[in-house]
């Protein structure tokens, strides 16, 4: 248990020492991740392992202690994030040959805090790890590049604000329940909820605020698009797949059990207001994330908004307060980890070869990077939630739960978002990989082997989880049982829904799809032969424009892909701009800053201000 915390720290230190030597750094990074994964593997089932550090530091009359415990739900998240991290670190091996900066030591610190967040048994430890993750990711995003500074600053501000709100929330919680331990405080909060209603709700809301920020839920949905667009691509893969789940884990761990145990009045016989609150934010995130993703031209931004939408689904799963929805949400967390990692790896590969992240400047890369294309294809099929890949099962469970709880608005929002997902996912596919290959990318090659292997692994992973969901569902249900939920251990192949007669067998779905494929393939083979012809041949009507001295026009329809649709939403999006709101706050602070500096630049008002101060003290403190 302790080793997995010491190893990252030691590795981070070593990486910092050897930072200039890329041949040492990334293999070391890989080995360390491998070790963590293996160690986590052995920890499965040993839920009683616990390590406490006692201090003499007193807060509210009790001595603080820091506890790390192998809690099942935390293990579930930690293990799968470790798998993803390992795969990404293989990718980094090849990816970082060209880059000048080196993100490895900071990244290792983040991995440390990652494990800390998932294994923390008390809020103080949790908070410490949370804060560590916040500022380290600032440095990881900027990675010493000035162009990333503004975006990273935006992330940092949100992150610190979230941490501050969480600090107050934790303090409220500790004072209310007399314990900083997560489980004890959850139990205590349920006990005191009715007598200390306002404070309890405040504590829950403050914590939710922090979690929502980290998971990019609605009012804070802007940061992924900003950050992902500028950060180092391999690290961004980690961020979009693993780090965005940091808000999800504590909600599953703390908020859902607490709200689930409370007996709040139900609105319209369906759900209580906290469920609605969480659900509406989730629904808005899902819908807004989808709509915004549809309009992006930068592929990293597009998938950043897609992450926002996916976080919205997960939140909807929680909001259903139904065991199927809960399982679905947690399942989707891992599915999203896998598929987002796959997608971002391919994006990183594309950027590695082309240096371009604007989709309309790309096109036709399928001719040059077929494996990358295949990974991407499977990734978007999974992201769209189409069987037989892995995004489907979890989305299906969440929709089932929403339908069984009669949460109609949420269900419709979910369908809207996942149908909208086809739009943006196809846009990315068509713009990056399909269409015509621009001349300047004629000579690029497929990425090297170290980068291909991770992508292939991710492909296998997506297919495996999609066809045999038990790979994830078994550990998940085992963990939930160990935590104390009354769930059945899932079978390897099928998923259980919340409605009547709704068990589906994903392996069977896969087989049926194969059947369809066979029929289709037969039809294909039955047809007459086909001839492979260059694209321009059709396009130019069989002429060779080179003959008359011009180049064939390589036009891809990809810049304003959904222009009519965008025009429909333009008025809405122009009026409501959270981004503009945040930006104006930032600007106001900067104006204020200039004012304050002007005040202090003048020296001669000193005595006047002094006198005013004394006058204030006398007026306020003495006379009144």
């Amino acid at each position, binding site marked *: 248990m302790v080793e997995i915390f010491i190893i990252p720290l030691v590795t981070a230190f070593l990486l910092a020492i050897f930072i200039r030597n890329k041949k040492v750094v990334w293999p070391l990074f890989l080995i360390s991740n491998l070790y963590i994964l293996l160690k986590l593997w052995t920890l499965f089932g040993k839920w009683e392992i616990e390590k406490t550090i006692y*201090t*003499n*530091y*007193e*807060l*509210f009359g009790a001595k603080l202690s820091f506890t790390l415990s192998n809690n099942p739900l935390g293990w579930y998240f930690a293990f799968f994030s470790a798998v993803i991290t390992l795969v990404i670190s293989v990718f980094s091996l090849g990816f970082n040959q060209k880059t*000048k900066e080196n993100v490895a030591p900071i990244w290792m610190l983040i991995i440390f805090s990652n494990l800390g967040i998932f294994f923390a048994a008390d809020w103080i430890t949790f*908070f*410490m*790890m949370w*804060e*560590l993750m916040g*500022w380290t990711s*600032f*440095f990881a995003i*900027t990675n*010493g*590049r*000035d162009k990333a*500074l503004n975006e990273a*600053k935006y992330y*940092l*501000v949100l992150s*610190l*604000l979230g941490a*501050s*709100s969480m*600090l*107050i929330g934790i*303090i*409220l919680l*500790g*004072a209310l329940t007399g314990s900083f331990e997560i489980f004890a405080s959850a139990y205590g909060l349920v006990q005191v909820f009715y007598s200390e209603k306002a404070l309890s709700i405040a504590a829950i809301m403050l914590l939710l605020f922090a979690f929502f920020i980290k998971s990019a839920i609605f009012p804070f949905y802007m940061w992924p698009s900003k950050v992902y667009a500028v950060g180092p691509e391999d690290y961004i893969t980690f961020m979009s797949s693993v780090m965005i789940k940091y808000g999800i884990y504590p909600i599953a761990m703390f908020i859902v059990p607490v709200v689930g145990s409370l007996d709040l009045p139900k609105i319209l016989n369906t759900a209580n207001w906290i469920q609605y609150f969480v659900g509406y934010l989730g629904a808005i995130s899902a819908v807004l994330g989808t709509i915004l993703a549809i309009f992006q031209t930068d592929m990293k931004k597009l998938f950043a908004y897609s992450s926002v939408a996916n976080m919205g689904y997960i939140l909807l799963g929680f909001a259903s307060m139904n065991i199927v929805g809960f399982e679905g949400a947690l399942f989707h967390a891992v599915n999203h980890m896998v598929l987002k990692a796959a997608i971002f790896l391919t994006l990183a590969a594309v950027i590695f070869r082309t240096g371009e992240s604007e989709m309309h400047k790309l096109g036709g890369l399928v001719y040059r990077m077929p494996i990358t294309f295949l990974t991407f294809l499977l990734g978007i099929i999974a992201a769209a939630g189409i069987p037989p890949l892995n995004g489907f099962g979890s989305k299906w469970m969440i929709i089932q739960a929403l339908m069984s709880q009669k949460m109609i608005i949420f269900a419709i929002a979910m369908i809207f978002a996942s149908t909208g997902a086809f739009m943006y996912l196809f846009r990315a596919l068509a713009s990056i990989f399909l269409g015509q290959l621009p001349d300047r990318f004629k000579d690029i090659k497929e990425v090297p082997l170290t980068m291909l292997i991770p992508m292939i692994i991710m492909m296998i992973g997506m297919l495996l989880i999609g066809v045999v969901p038990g790979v994830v569902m078994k550990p998940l249900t085992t963990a939930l049982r160990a935590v104390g939920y009354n769930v059945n251990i899932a079978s390897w192949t099928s998923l259980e829904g919340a409605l009547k007669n709704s068990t589906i067998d994903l392996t069977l779905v896969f087989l049926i799809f194969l059947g369809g494929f066979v029929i289709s393939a037969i039809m294909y083979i039955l047809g007459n032969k086909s001839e492979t012809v260059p694209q321009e041949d059709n396009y130019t009507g069989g002429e060779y424009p080179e003959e008359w001295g011009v180049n064939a026009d390589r036009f891809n329809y990809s810049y304003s892909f959904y222009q009519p649709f965008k025009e429909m939403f333009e008025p809405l999006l122009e009026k409501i701009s959270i981004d503009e709101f945040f930006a104006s706050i930032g600007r106001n*602070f*900067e104006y*204020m*800053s*200039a004012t*304050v*500096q002007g005040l*202090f*630049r*003048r*020296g*001669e*008002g*000193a*005595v006047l*201000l*002094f006198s*005013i*101060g*004394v006058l*204030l*003290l*006398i007026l*306020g*403190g*003495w006379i*009144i």
Partner: protein
Amino acid sequence: MNSIVFLIVIPLIAAFLSLFLGKNDKILAYIVTLFNIIFSILILFSGKIPFNVAIGGWRAPYGINYAVTDLTIFFLVLVNVAALLALTSVREIMEYQFYSFYFVLLSSTNGIVLTGDLFNFFLFIELSTFAVAGLISYKRDRLSTGAALKYLILSSTASIFSLAAIGLIYKTLGTLNFADIANKVNNLNEASLSLILILYISSLLVELKIFPFNMWVVKAYEASKTSVNLFIHGMLGTAGIYGVLRILLMVFSKETGKLTLSGNLSSILMLFAFVTVIIGEIGALTEKNMKKILAFSSMAQLGIVLFGISLGSFDALKGVLYIVISNYLAKFVMFLTVNEFSKVSGSTNYLDMKGLGRRYPVLAISFTISALSLMGIPFFAGFWGKISIIGNAVFSGKLELIGAVLILIASVIEGVYYLRISHTFFSQGHEREGRISRVYCLLPMILALVILFIGINPDSFENIISILLDEIKSPEKYIKLILSLK
């Protein structure tokens, strides 16, 4: 232990000697400072603490006395160590004025910490402002002369107010001895106590850099040399904090060891505190000059300190001590780093220091650690202060809650500008000619490691703090020590 007077007298003698020694002043400065450190550490380990020294044999309420208690010795060591650390940043040859003023400052800050008499305290404060003004103006250029003059005018005005307060105290209580005042303070009616405190506090707040008493800070920091910044920060600032702790909590305190002001007064003080925090952080947000940034930031930190003190709970006070030590160490690291970097880059604008962190990672990492500690990030010393203060503020009342929220927001702003600077250090920069000797990287690194150590292992510092808190909790021990009729 009558020899305690040496701590004050020897620097004063040295101040005279330095007029004649010329280039040997530096050696003298080191010798005297080392003497002060060693002497105070010897006192610390002599086992005789607490003890009381009556000057000239006049017993406590009548004569001036120097009392050495746990709180005193803690701050004494801090002040003297600060003096030594700040001296290490003096590289070039300074003229005698510098050292002379330095010795006066050393003597007066030691005096502030040691003395047990209100008027004596006032004298030392006056002396220290005098010395600081001299040190600020040492550079003799436009900026420094103006800054020094303005500082001097402000602090003279302030000292006049505190003199009025001293007069009032003498008029009402008939004594100027700390212990005696503390003993008799219950006889004072609320109104007189408030007036006295108002007049006295306002002069202390000037040293504490609390808005609106702090107009001098930024200019003075900007105008003076780094070593002088460190003197102001490490010696004057620390001694000022000691003065506030001693006077507000142990002398003019009706309730044991707590800040007892009439309701409005403490609210206004708290208001001042968090307005200072906000103003300090906002002022630093878009600033480019590192020295100004650090000035704004130390303003804000002292605002947090005052906020913690005015909360009136021992837990918060513990937090205050953490903040004090974190700020003390962190600002040293930062000023030293800025000093080195500005020498290489030839400017104090942080944008010109681009890329230096890659060449001198130790310095830049130390800077980052200090910045994180000031922000109150876990694993660094400042966190334990922040959590304690915020934790106590949240439940104390509406104003306190607002203050806590504002302080948290301020720490976010602090994070933005400090980490931006750290980022600039680590970003790609151009090649430069100057070099920084590795020796100079050592000291910031050690201090940063201390911050990290306290942050990871609060136990190490918690024990010291509990001793200090014990003393603040029971001022009657102090009274008994001084007024004991042997």
